[in-house]
C-alpha cells in the first residue's frame, strides 16, 4: 500500500504531462498554420498575366545574368560550409546572436505598442474581412461543430451500450484490464475522431475566403483541442467511475485534478488560438510595421498567460496531491511531500526556462529543452502508471488468496473450534508468505523498458524534427553531423533494444532459478534441477551474443566494415571447430543429455563400470561421486548408455532361508504385520511406495527353503528400509520360534559303535570339502 501511495506524486505528473503534451500538440497544430497557409496560397494557379510577366522576365538577359551569378554564389557559399566546419558554426552562432538582439529590440517595443494595439488590430480586422464576416465565421463554427457533434452522437448510439458495459464490468486479470482500457480508449477516441471528421472535414469540403477559412479553422481546432484535452484527462482520471481510473486517486481528488487540468489547458489553448488569429491577420494584410508589432504584443501576452496558467496548474496540482497524502503516516507523507516539492520545483523551472527561450525566439532550443526536460517526468510517470496498473491486478490476486485463507479459517472454526483454527491458519499462511514474489514481475519490467524505449526514441525524433532536420535524410548524408547523428541514433536504439531483451531474459531466467530449490537429503531432485543446470549457461550465452551483436551493429553504423570481422570469426570458428571437435561433441551431447532429462544433479547413476551420485555438470563433463568417495569425471561425449537408479521407484528383494518345517503361514502373517508397522512409522512411511510383503517360498534349496520378501520404495530410501526390515524380521522370527536355517553338513556314518578320535577327524575332513565348496561364492554386490 505504501508503494501505491508513493506513486501519488508521480501521478501528479501524469496529469500534468497529460496536460502539457496535448497543449504541445495544440501548439504544433496551431503553429504550422502559417506555413500551410502559404502553401495554400502557392497552390492557387497564377493568373495568365502573371505567367506572361514571368516569361518576359526570364527572357531578360540582365535577369539571366543575375540568376546565374546568384547560383554561382550559392554553390560557392555551400562548398566552404561543408569544408570549414568551424567557420559555419561561427556564422551560425553570430546569426543566432543577431536574431536574439533583434528579438530583444522587438520585446522592448511591446509595452510601447500595447495601448494602440486594440485599435490598430481592429482596423486591420475590418480591412481583411467583409462586413458581417466575423459573425458569419461564428455561424460557420457553430454549424460545423453541430455537424461534428451530430455524427459523434450517431457513433455513440451504436457504441454506448458497449461503453456502459465496459464501465460496469471490472476485469481483474492483467490482460482483461489491458483489454478493457484499450477498448475504452478506442471507443472514446473513436468518438473524437468522428467529431473531427464531421466538423473539420465538413468545413474543408467547402471553398472559403482564405482569412475566413483560417479563422474558422483555428476556432474549430481550438474546440477540438479542448475536447481532446478533456477526453485524455477523462480517459486517465475517469472522475466518475473509480474502477476505470488509471491513476491512484480517490474520486474527489480525481475530479479536482480533472477540472484543474481542463481549466489550465483550456486557458493555454485559448491564448494560443487568439495569438494565432492575430498573427494570421497580420500575415494576411500587407502589414504596417506597427500592426505587426501590435500582433507581436498580443502573442507575447498570450505567452505570458500560458506561462501563468502552466505555473498555476503545476502548483495547484502539487497542492492537491500533497493534500491527498494527509492520511498517510508521517514518515511516508514527508517523503512523499518532498518528492512532490522536488517535481514542482523542477517543472516550474522548466516552464520558466521554456518561456524565456520562446521569448527570445530560440525555438529550436526551446523545443529541445522542453522535450528533454519533460522526458524524465514522462519516464517517471510511465513507470508509476505501469506500476499502478500492475499493482492493481496483483493486489486483487493476492487479495483473493487472502480471501481463500479467510474462508478456510471460517470452515475450520466451524469444525474444530478456535484452537485448531489458529494452528491451521498459521499453516496456511506460511506458504503464502514464502510466495512473496509478485505474479507479474517479468511482464512489468519488460513493459516499463519497452515504454521507455518508445518514449526516448520518440522524444529524440521530436527534438530532431524541432531542429528542422529530417533525421532519416540526415543519417544518409555524408556530412560529419549526419554521421554522428546516425551513429548516436543507432547506438541508442541498439543498446535500448538489447537492454530490453536482456532485462526480459534475465528476469525470466532468474525467476526460474529462484524457483528451484536443491533437494534436501536423500530426496530425489525434481525436474527443475535440469533447468538449474541449463539456465545459467543460457544466460551467459545470451549476454555474450547480445554484447557482440550490439558491438557489431555500432561498429557497422560507425562505418567500420565488419564483414572481415565476421569472416574472420567464421574462419576462426571453423578452425576451432575442427580442433575442438571432441570438445564440441561433449558440449552438444551434454545439452542433449540435459534435454533428454537422462540425469539430474543429485541422482545416483551408473555409466559403464562407474557409479555414483551426480555431483555437478560443467559445460563439457559430468562429475560423479562414488559412494566410497571417489570422484569420476566423464566427458559427455563419452556417455553412450547410462543407467539411472534414482528415478521414480526401486524394488528391493530380501531372502530368508528357513528350514523345511517352518510354518509359512506364520511367516507371512509376521511379515505382513511388520510391513504394516513400518508403514505407520514416521521414519519410513514417506519412503515406501508399496509396503513390505512376503512372496512366499521363492525356491527350494538342498537343506532349506527360501522365503522372498520385497518392497517398493522411493529411490535413495531403500537402504535404510532394508536395514531395519531385516532387523525387525529377524527379531520377529526369533520371538515366534522360527529358526533361520543354518548351514550344516550331515555326514552319515554307517556304523553303530562310537567313533574314535581319528575317525571323527576323518569325518570332519570329509565334510570340510562340502563346506568350502559352498563358500566359493563371490563378494556381495557393491552397494552404498
Amino acid at each position: 500500500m505504501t508503494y501505491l501511495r508513493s506513486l501519488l506524486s508521480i501521478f501528479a505528473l501524469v496529469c500534468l504531462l497529460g496536460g502539457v503534451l496535448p497543449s504541445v500538440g495544440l501548439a504544433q497544430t496551431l503553429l504550422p498554420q502559417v506555413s500551410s497557409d502559404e502553401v495554400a496560397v502557392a497552390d492557387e494557379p497564377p493568373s495568365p498575366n502573371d505567367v506572361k510577366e514571368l516569361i518576359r522576365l526570364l527572357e531578360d538577359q540582365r535577369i539571366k545574368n543575375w540568376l546565374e551569378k546568384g547560383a554561382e554564389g550559392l554553390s560557392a557559399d555551400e562548398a566552404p560550409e561543408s569544408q570549414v566546419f568551424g567557420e559555419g558554426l561561427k556564422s551560425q552562432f553570430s546569426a543566432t546572436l543577431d536574431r536574439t538582439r533583434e528579438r530583444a529590440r522587438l520585446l522592448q517595443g511591446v509595452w510601447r505598442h500595447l495601448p494602440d494595439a486594440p485599435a490598430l488590430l481592429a482596423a486591420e480586422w475590418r480591412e481583411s474581412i467583409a462586413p458581417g464576416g466575423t459573425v458569419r465565421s461564428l455561424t460557420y463554427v457553430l454549424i460545423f461543430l453541430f455537424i461534428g457533434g451530430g455524427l459523434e452522437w450517431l457513433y455513440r448510439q451504436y457504441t454506448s451500450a458497449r461503453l456502459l458495459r465496459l464501465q460496469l464490468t471490472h476485469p481483474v486479470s492483467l490482460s482483461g484490464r489491458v483489454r478493457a482500457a484499450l477498448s475504452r480508449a478506442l471507443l472514446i477516441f473513436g468518438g473524437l475522431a468522428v467529431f473531427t471528421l464531421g466538423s473539420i472535414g465538413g468545413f474543408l469540403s467547402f471553398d472559403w475566403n482564405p482569412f475566413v477559412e483560417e479563422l474558422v479553422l483555428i476556432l474549430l481546432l481550438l474546440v477540438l483541442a479542448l475536447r481532446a484535452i478533456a477526453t485524455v484527462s477523462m480517459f486517465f482520471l475517469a472522475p466518475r467511475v473509480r474502477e476505470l481510473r488509471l491513476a491512484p486517486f480517490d474520486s474527489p481528488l480525481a475530479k479536482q485534478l480533472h477540472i484543474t487540468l481542463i481549466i489550465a489547458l483550456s486557458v493555454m489553448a485559448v491564448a494560443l488560438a487568439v495569438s494565432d488569429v492575430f498573427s494570421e491577420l497580420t500575415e494576411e494584410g500587407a502589414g504596417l510595421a506597427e500592426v505587426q508589432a501590435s500582433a507581436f504584443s498580443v502573442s507575447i501576452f498570450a505567452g505570458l498567460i500560458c506561462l501563468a496558467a502552466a505555473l498555476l496548474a503545476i502548483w495547484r496540482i502539487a497542492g492537491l496531491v500533497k493534500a491527498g497524502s494527509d492520511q498517510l503516516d508521517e514518515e511516508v507523507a514527508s517523503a512523499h511531500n518532498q518528492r512532490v516539492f522536488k517535481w514542482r520545483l523542477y517543472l516550474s523551472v522548466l516552464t520558466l526556462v521554456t518561456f524565456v527561450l520562446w521569448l527570445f525566439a530560440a525555438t529550436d532550443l526551446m523545443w529541445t529543452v522542453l522535450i528533454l526536460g519533460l522526458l524524465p517526468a514522462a519516464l517517471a510517470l510511465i513507470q508509476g502508471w505501469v506500476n499502478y496498473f500492475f499493482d492493481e491486478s496483483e493486489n486483487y490476486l493476492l487479495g483473493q488468496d487472502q480471501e481463500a485463507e479467510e474462508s478456510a479459517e471460517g470452515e475450520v472454526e466451524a469444525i474444530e473450534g478456535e484452537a485448531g483454527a489458529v494452528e491451521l491458519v498459521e499453516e496456511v499462511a506460511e506458504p503464502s508468505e514464502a510466495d512473496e514474489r509478485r505474479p507479474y514481475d517479468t511482464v512489468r519490467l519488460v513493459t516499463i523498458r519497452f515504454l521507455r524505449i518508445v518514449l526516448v526514441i520518440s522524444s529524440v525524433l521530436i527534438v530532431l524534427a524541432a531542429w528542422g532536420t529530417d533525421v532519416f535524410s540526415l543519417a544518409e548524408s555524408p556530412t560529419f553531423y549526419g554521421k554522428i547523428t546516425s551513429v548516436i541514433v543507432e547506438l541508442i536504439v541498439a543498446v535500448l533494444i538489447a537492454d530490453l531483451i536482456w532485462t526480459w531474459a534475465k528476469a525470466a531466467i532468474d525467476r526460474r532459478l529462484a524457483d528451484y530449490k536443491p533437494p534436501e537429503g536423500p530426496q530425489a531432485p525434481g525436474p527443475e534441477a535440469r533447468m538449474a543446470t541449463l539456465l545459467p549457461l543460457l544466460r551467459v550465452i545470451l549476454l555474450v551474443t547480445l554484447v557482440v551483436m550490439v558491438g557489431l551493429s555500432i561498429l557497422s553504423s560507425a562505418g567500420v566494415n565488419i564483414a572481415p570481422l565476421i569472416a574472420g570469426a567464421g574462419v576462426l570458428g571453423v578452425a576451432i571447430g575442427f580442433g575442438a571437435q571432441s570438445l564440441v561433441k561433449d558440449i552438444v551431447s551434454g545439452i542433449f543429455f540435459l534435454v533428454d532429462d537422462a540425469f539430474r544433479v543429485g541422482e545416483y547413476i551408473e555409466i559403464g563400470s562407474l557409479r555414483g551420485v551426480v555431483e555437478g555438470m560443467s559445460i563439457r563433463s559430468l562429475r560423479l561421486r562414488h559412494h566410497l568417495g571417489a570422484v569420476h569425471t566423464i566427458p559427455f561425449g563419452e556417455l553412450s548408455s547410462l543407467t539411472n537408479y534414482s528415478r521414480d521407484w526401486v524394488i528391493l528383494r530380501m531372502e530368508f532361508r528357513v528350514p523345511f518345517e517352518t510354518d509359512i503361514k506364520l511367516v507371512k502373517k509376521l511379515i505382513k504385520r511388520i510391513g504394516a508397522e513400518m508403514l505407520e512409522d514416521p521414519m519410513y512411511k514417506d519412503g515406501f511406495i508399496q509396503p513390505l510383503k512376503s512372496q512366499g517360498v521363492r525356491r527350494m534349496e538342498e537343506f532349506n527353503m527360501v522365503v522372498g520378501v520385497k518392497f517398493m520404495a522411493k529411490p535413495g530410501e531403500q537402504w535404510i528400509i532394508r536395514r531395519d526390515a531385516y532387523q525387525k524380521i529377524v527379531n520377529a522370527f526369533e520371538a515366534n520360534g522360527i529358526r533361520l536355517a543354518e548351514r550344516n553338513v550331515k555326514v552319515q556314518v554307517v556304523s553303530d559303535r562310537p567313533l574314535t578320535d581319528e575317525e571323527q577327524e576323518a569325518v570332519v575332513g570329509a565334510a570340510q570339502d562340502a563346506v568350502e565348496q559352498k563358500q566359493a561364492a563371490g563378494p556381495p554386490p557393491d552397494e552404498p
Partner: protein
Amino acid sequence: MTRTLRIVTGIILFVFVATHLLNMAFGLISLEALEAARFYFSLPWTNPVGFLLLAGSMLIHGGLGLVAIYWRNTLQMTRYDLLQTVSALLIVPLLASHVLGVTLAANMFSMVPSYESVLTFFWVQAPHEGLRQALVVAVTWIHGCAGLFTWMRLKPWWNRAAVVAYPLAVLIPVSALLGFVEAGNEVIALSAASTVQSAPPSAEIIAKFQTYNTILWSVIGGYVVLVVATLLARMVRLSASKPGIVTLSYLTGDTIRTEGGVSLLEAAEAHDLPHANICKGRGRCATCRVRIISSSEELPPPSEIEQKTLDRFECPDNIRLACQLVPMSGTIELERVLPPDVGLDALRPPSHQVKTDVDNEPEVPAEAAAT
C-alpha cells in the same frame, strides 16, 4: 392525459421542424430548388387547419413545459431533464424573431418572404440573425430528438425503426445546415455582385421597423416574465414544505446523502451511481425499479402513474420506481432490481418475457450480467 398530449403536440411540432429542415436541405442544390421545394413542404402548414394545429401544439406544448417546471420539487435534475428544460427555455427567445419576421414583416413591410430575401437578411444584412438561426436549429432539433427518441424507445417497433431513425436524426439537420451554408454562400456572392446600392430607408419604414422591434421584444419579454412567474409560483408552492436529509444505502455498499425532494434516480445520477432508466424518469419503463428493504420513515404512496407501471410488471409492494419515489427525509436501504446496462428486453412485462420473474432474482452483479 398530460403525457399523451405532450407527446402528440411534440410530434406535430417535430414533424413541422423536420419538413422545414428538409426544405432547407434543398439549398445544397441551388436557391431555385430551395424555392421550388418550398411549396410542397409548406403545404401542410399553410392551410388553416394545419396552421391552427401547429399554433395550438406550440402553445400547449410550451404550456405543459411550464406546468412541469412548476411541479418540480427541486431544480437538481438528471442530465436528460436538464438538457430538455434548458433547450426548451431557449427556443422561444431564439425563434421569436424568425417567426415574427416571416409572419408580421410580410404584412407590415408588404413584401413576400422568399428564401432569397430571408437568406440575404440572415447572411448579409444581419449576420447575427443567421447565427441565431443556426443556434435555434441545433437547440430545437436536440430537444425534439431527445423527447422523441425517449418515447420511441419504449415502443415494440423500436428495434426496426432504430435502423432508420438514428441516421435520419443526424442526416436531416446536417443536410439542412449544409444547405443553409451553401445557399448562404450563393446569396453572399449574389449580393456582392449586385452593385445597386439600396436606397436609404424612408422614415416610414424606420417607424414600422421600430414597431416591429417593439412587438418582438415584448413577445420575448412576455415570455421571460411568464417563466419567471412560473418559477416564483413554484417557490411559493414549495415554501411550505421543508425537505430533510435523505440517506440512501444500497446493498452494493454505496451510500448517498442528499436533500429531500429529489427522486431516487436523480440522487443516484448526481452521485455517479449508474442506474438503468430507459424512459428517462417518466415512470413508463420500470427499468429503474428498486427493492426497498427498509425505510426509517414512511414512504409516500405510489402515484397513479407509478402504480400502473408497477401493476403491469406485477411487482410486489416493496418494489418502487426510483424515478417516481421522492422521499423527503429518513434513511432508506434498497437495491437495484435490474443492472444498469439492461437491454430493451426488460421493457416487456414479465408475463411476455422469455426469462420469467426477473423481479425475484437478486441484483445481478455486473460481471455476471456482461456474460
